[in-house]
């Protein structure tokens, strides 16, 4: 199963072990999201959650090239980013359930998971709201003279936010090591981006002189090789980059959006053929680096870990009432 591919295509310089790790990470996100959905539909999770299913290759492909001390900022659809950057399943679920053991002691919930130990500066409930924060992290990196990189994840909905353009302009002016990753999943909430984004998406960045690429966000090998390029470039003083990763939100805007009247089932079926997990499975199989038994074992191991994490979170205590007034001020 570890037979390597001798060609020089995307990611071919990496061995099967690496790709199986990436596969496992994508499966972990997929299983996490399925479990979150189950917690919602069984009324065991307060509030809602925005699932990342279908977009896993972007978070994993980007974070695979990042170091632990690199930064990310995330979005309301952020579970995938947090997990890809190294967050633990149990504390993630605990946060989703509002438990004290959660990453934010139950104060943040699904949309605000932050974990400084893995460089996660926080998911954000404001669309595009973290563009400034990621850019500020880039400024901080420059002023402190380190070789860290900050990756700013956002969706195509954020292309409507002026803050993004203010931030990219300054990042380019000052050559800040910030990678702006637009996860173009086609819809801002319930509206297709053909109705909200005029002109060229890439052109929004090239106008500032920012290095920009549009890529297939379903293919983790493409995401990985592009990430390697722009992250190394930024780390070496080459300045910011802007990636438009074309992808699709396999589920609704949030767990409660089940009818999805704003798009067709045919469109969904077309995109389902390009499931990022399946694409990687196919490639690993075709190149004889792994087979179905390997994928099944990984899926089972991950499912066991997810089940344990869910149980941990369900049994974990809620915060004490005294917690409500803590952490308003440092």
């Amino acid at each position: 199963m570890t037979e390597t591919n001798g060609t020089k295509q995307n990611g071919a310089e990496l061995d099967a072990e690496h790709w199986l790790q990436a596969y496992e990470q994508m499966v972990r996100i997929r299983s996490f999201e399925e479990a979150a959905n189950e917690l919602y539909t069984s009324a065991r999770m307060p509030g809602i959650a925005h699932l990342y299913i279908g977009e896993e290759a972007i978070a994993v492909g980007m974070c695979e090239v990042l170091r632990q001390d690199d930064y990310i900022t995330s979005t309301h659809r952020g579970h995938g980013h947090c997990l890809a950057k190294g967050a633990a399943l149990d504390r993630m679920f605990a946060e989703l359930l509002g438990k004290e053991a959660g990453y934010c002691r139950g104060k943040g919930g699904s949309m605000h998971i932050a974990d400084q130990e893995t460089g996660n500066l926080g998911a954000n409930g404001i669309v595009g709201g973290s563009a400034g924060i990621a850019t500020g992290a880039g400024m901080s990196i420059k002023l402190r003279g380190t070789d860290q990189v900050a990756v700013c994840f956002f969706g195509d909905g954020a292309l409507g936010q002026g803050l993004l353009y203010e931030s990219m302009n300054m990042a380019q002016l000052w050559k800040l090591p910030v990678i702006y990753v637009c996860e173009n999943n086609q819809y801002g909430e319930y509206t297709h981006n053909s109705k909200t984004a005029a002109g060229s998406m890439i052109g929004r960045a090239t106008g500032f002189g920012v290095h920009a690429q549009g890529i297939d966000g379903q293919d983790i090998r493409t995401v990985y090789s592009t990430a390697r390029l722009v992250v190394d470039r930024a780390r070496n003083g080459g300045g910011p980059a802007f990636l438009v990763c074309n992808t699709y939100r396999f589920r609704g805007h949030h767990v409660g959006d089940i009818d999805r009247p704003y798009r067709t089932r045919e469109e969904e079926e077309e995109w389902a053929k390009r499931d990022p997990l399946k694409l990687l499975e196919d490639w690993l199989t075709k190149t004889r680096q792994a087979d179905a038994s390997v994928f099944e074992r990984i899926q089972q191991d991950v499912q066991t870990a997810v089940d344990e994490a869910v149980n941990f979170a369900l049994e974990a205590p809620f915060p004490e009432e005294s917690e409500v007034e803590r952490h308003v001020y440092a």
Partner: protein
Amino acid sequence: MSTLKNGIVCSPAIHAPGEREITFSQAIREAVAEEMARDERVFVIGEDVAEAGSVFKVLVGLLDEFGADRVIDSPISEAGIAGIGVGAAITGMRPIVDIMFGDFTTLVMDQMINQAAKTHYMSGGKLTVPMVLRTTLGASRRSAAQHSQSLHALFSHIPGLKVAVPATPYDAKGLMKSAIRDDNPVVIFEDKMLYQQKGPVPEGEYVLPLGQADVKRAGEDITIVATSSMVYTALEAVDKLAEAGISAELVDPRTTTPLDTETLIESARKTSRALVVDEGYQQYGVTGELAAVIADGAFYYLDAPVKRIGAMNVPVPFSPAMEDLTIPSADYVFETAKAMCG
């Protein structure tokens, strides 16, 4: 205690004989320069802060002293630089974000209210945002409705933010230094009309705690609470009241958040009357909050309802004939206080 030429009473430690006097502007500049020298994590970013030394010339010389890496001229992108401040603060720096007119803080609201103010709480206490946003307030510069507002109440409303409104050069320096060292986002409002105001500022190192009011003038018959430049307006009224045989106590909260409720209430209990003066719009403003705090805490000691005077609830007009009507005047403060003591 000793009395300065402008009537402000300071403790001997503040006003030692032979002590130098500097302007409010110089006090701010000194505070920033001292903190930048003390802590290399401190940097300044804003429109025209470097080459021009800021539009009010408050930061002149900082560029030469600390270089362009730490005194950064930005594009006209208020939200962007506020966001950069938040991100830099979370990742180990201590940014000072300069928003030249308080009116322009409307452009940074998401970054301050949804990001800076909530990051520490939402992260369960793991992330901190030690940033300062310095900006201005105050009318009467004939600058019309978009360059004259006093919007400190907007920020004072938000848990997670601290807000300072210094009136004197001494307070400005001490509060600015504390703000820079504070691990929370702090918004400092400097009245544009105070920049040339002189006052005693000791040469040596000192800081003033955020959340400690200052009794600028002790009195017996009525408490006048005033913020920022309204301290001077109130002082003028206090002098006139003295001529009329009324002894007024002037209390300056110095910060609206955190608010030193204890000093306000204690003073009102002592004098049995309280009048609050602030240059923000009166409706839903700082005066309302301060008056409510006093009414709650001193009700059984009061001989009159707590009164408040804010700016008129109109956009600040350009014409001097109208603009001056909109902000609290010393005469109006005097008349109101006198009537309360009648």
